[in-house]
C-alpha cells in the first residue's frame, strides 16, 4: 500500500504535468484557428449534453498536419533543426571528450576542483551567457580583434548571425551535459586495463581505441542524447546568435504561437517535434538500462 503510494507520486506528476497538457495540445492541433478567445474552434461545451460532445469530436480533423506536409517551410525547418542539432552534438562531443578525459586522468586531489569549474557557468543566467557570446563573435568582437591582432586574418570574420554562431552557442551551453557522463564513465575505468592492453601488444593509441573508447561508450551515448534532445527544439540560442536564414523548428513554433497567433498549427508543429524526439529518448532510455545491467 505504502509502496503503491510512493510509486504513484512520479506517475501523478507525469499525468498532471505532462500527459494532460499533451492531450490538450494534441486537441488544439486538431482544431481550427479562429479570431476568438481562445483562438481556436471548437471548444468543448459540456453543459449542452451528449449531442454537443458528439459534434465537438466531429469537428476535429488532421487538416493542420496536412498543411504542415504541404508547406515546405516546416519540412525545411525540421530538417535544418536536425542538422543543427547533429552538428552541435558532434562538436560538443569533440570538445567535451578531451575535457572529460583530462579530468579523469588528473590527480585525484584536483578532480573536485575541475568538476566544480565545469558546473560553475550554471551559476550565471543562461540568457546572459548566450548574450555574452554576441560580444565575442560580432565583427568588432573579442574573437575578431584577437585574430586580427595576431595577424591571422585581414578582415573581420562574419560569425555572428550565422549557423556557425548557433553551433558554438549550443556547444558552449550544453558542454557540461556532455562532459559529466563521459567523465563518470572514464573515472570508473581501472588504469590497469590500459596497462594490460599495452602488455598484450597494443600501442598507447590502440589501447585508447580498443579499451578506453568502448568503456566510455555509455557515457558518450548519454552525453550525446542529453545535448541532442534539447538542441533539437532549441529556441533562445538560434534567435540570439543565429541569422535570419537560420531555420529552426523552435523558432518557427514561437512565430506560429506569438506572431501568427495560429495555435492549432503551432500545436501540430509541437506534436510532430515530440514524435521526432521520442526516437532518441527511447534510445537514451535503453542505453541507461543497459548500463545499469552491466553495472550489476
Amino acid at each position, binding site marked *: 500500500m505504502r509502496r503503491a503510494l510512493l510509486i504513484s507520486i512520479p506517475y501523478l506528476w507525469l499525468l498532471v504535468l505532462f500527459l494532460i497538457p499533451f492531450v490538450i495540445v494534441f486537441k488544439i492541433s486538431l482544431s481550427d484557428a479562429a479570431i476568438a478567445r481562445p483562438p481556436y474552434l471548437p471548444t468543448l461545451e459540456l453543459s449542452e449534453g451528449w449531442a454537443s460532445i458528439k459534434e465537438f469530436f466531429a469537428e476535429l480533423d488532421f487538416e493542420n498536419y496536412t498543411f504542415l506536409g504541404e508547406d515546405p517551410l516546416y519540412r525545411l525547418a525540421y530538417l535544418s533543426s536536425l542538422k543543427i542539432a547533429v552538428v552541435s552534438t558532434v562538436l560538443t562531443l569533440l570538445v567535451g571528450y578531451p575535457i572529460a578525459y583530462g579530468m579523469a586522468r588528473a590527480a585525484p586531489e584536483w578532480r573536485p576542483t575541475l568538476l566544480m569549474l565545469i558546473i560553475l557557468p550554471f551559476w550565471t543566467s543562461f540568457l546572459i551567457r548566450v548574450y555574452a557570446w554576441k560580444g565575442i563573435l560580432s565583427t568588432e568582437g573579442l574573437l575578431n580583434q584577437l585574430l586580427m591582432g595576431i595577424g591571422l586574418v585581414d578582415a573581420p570574420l562574419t560569425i555572428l548571425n550565422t549557423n556557425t554562431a548557433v553551433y558554438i552557442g549550443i556547444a558552449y551551453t550544453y558542454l557540461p551535459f556532455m562532459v559529466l557522463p563521459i567523465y563518470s564513465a572514464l573515472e570508473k575505468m*581501472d588504469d590497469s586495463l590500459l596497462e594490460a592492453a599495452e*602488455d598484450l601488444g597494443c600501442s598507447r593509441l590502440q589501447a585508447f581505441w580498443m579499451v578506453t573508447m*568502448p568503456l566510455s561508450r555509455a557515457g558518450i551515448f548519454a552525453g550525446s542524447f542529453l545535448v541532442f534532445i534539447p538542441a533539437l527544439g532549441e529556441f533562445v540560442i538560434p534567435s540570439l546568435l543565429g541569422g535570419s536564414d537560420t531555420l529552426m523548428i523552435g523558432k518557427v513554433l514561437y512565430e506560429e504561437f506569438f506572431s501568427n497567433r495560429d495555435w492549432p498549427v503551432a500545436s501540430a508543429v509541437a506534436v510532430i517535434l515530440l514524435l521526432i524526439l521520442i526516437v532518441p529518448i527511447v534510445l537514451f532510455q535503453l542505453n541507461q538500462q543497459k548500463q545499469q545491467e*552491466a553495472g550489476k
Partner: protein
Amino acid sequence: MAQTVFAPWEDSQEKPLIEFVNVTKRFGDFTAIDNLSQKIYAREFFALLGPSGCGKTTMMRMLAGFETPSEGKILLAGQDIGAVPPNKRAVNMMFQSYALFPHLSVWDNIAFGLKREGMAKDKIAARVDEMLRLTRLEKFARRKPHQISGGQRQRVALARSLAKAPKLLLLDEPLGALDKKLRQETQFELMDIQESTGTTFVIVTHDQEEAMTVASRVAVMDHGRIVQVATPDVIYEAPNSVYVADFIGDVNLISGKASTRKAAPASQSKPAPQPAKPAEPTSPSPSDERRPQPNAMGEWLHDRVLEPVLGKRDPNTPAPIVEQVTAAEPQPVSAPPEIPAGGLAITWSPDHPPLIASNASETFGGADVVLALRPEKLNISTTKPDAPNVLRGKVIDIAYLGNISTYHVQLDNGTMVKAQIANTRRVSRRQITWEDEVWLSFTTTAGVVLEQGT
C-alpha cells in the same frame, strides 16, 4: 622435477633468462630499488616476497616495462630491455586486479593479445581453445567477466597472459582476491601449468605461505634490496638474518651473548656449563643398550596402581641397567647427556641456563646474537625432560588449530615463547592446559644463530 633436482642457479655455466645488473629505481626522493643485482633462470618459478613497500612490485613493473630503471640495466635473454616498451616485450603480466576487459567476453579477452599480433583467425581460435582447456573454462567462453566468479576470473586472467606464450610470465599477487581454500587449490594449478608450459614465472606476493608453496626460489625483499634468495626450505630452515627468520613463518627470537664452548671431547668429564640446573637422580644416562624406560607418568602409575596389585617390579627390568650405568660412571649424572661438544653457549637471562647451539659458527663467539627457534622444533612436557636445552615456564595461552596446537608459554623471566605440537592423538597422553607448569626443550641444532640487528 621428479628425477633430477631443478637448480640452474647452482650451475655457473647456465645462462640466466633475466638479469638485473646494479638496478636502482627512484621515485623522487624515494628509492624503491637500491642497487639490486639478481639472476633468474629459464623455467624457474621465482617468488618476490616482502612486506608492502619493499620494492617487489616495482621490480615486476620494470620487468613488464611499465617502469624504467633509474640506473643499471635489465637483461632479458642477454638483451638490454630498458628501452623496449611493454607492448614489444616477450613478457606478459597477470594483474592483481586481473584487469579483464569488461566489454569483451572471456573468449575475446583471451584472444586480445593474439589479435594484436595479427595471427590468422583459425590459429587464434585454436590457441584460445587450448587456453580455455588448460584453465578449464570451456563452458564460460561466451560469458562476460562480470558474469563469472572470482576464481574463474582469475583463471581467465591467467589464460589471457599465457595465450601469447611469453618467455616470462609475471604474476602480481595473483591469488590475493581468492578465499583460502580456493587459493590453495589454485596454487597447485599454477604449479602444474607452469610445469606443463615450461614458462618462467615471476610471482610477487606478500603471502609467505604462497611463495613457499609455489616457488622454486624465494627472494625475500626489504627496503629495495633482496635480503636472501634461496629455495623455500633453505629460507625457512637457514635464514641468513633475523629479518628473514621473522618474516617467514612463526619464530621465537631469543637475544643473548654467545661464547664458544670447548670443542675437546674430554669436556664430557667436566661439569656441564649450566650450574643452575639441578641434578636429577632418576634421569637415565645414555647407554648403548636403548631399553624402554618408564617416564614420570609411568612411574607414578606403577607406584600407585600396579604395585599394590602386582607387587614389586621384576628385578630383571631396566632398573638394574640404570644402576649399572650410574655405578660405572657416577660423575656426569648432573650433566645433560647428549650435548655434542663445541658450538656456542648463549647467555641470555639470569633466570635460565645458557642455551647451547652446536650448529653455529664459532666466529660468533663473544658477539651479541639472536637464536631463532621455530615453534615446531620445541618440545613441551609436564616433567623435566632430558635435553640439552630446557626452559621452564607456564602455559598462558593455547591456540588450537585442529591439526596442531600452539602453546604460548611464559618463561620464568617473563619471555613469551611459542611451541607447536601436532595433535596426533585425539586425547593427548599429556594433557597440558592453561596455567600448567611445563618444560620446553630442544636439541642443540634446533635453532639458528643469527647476528643481532640483521
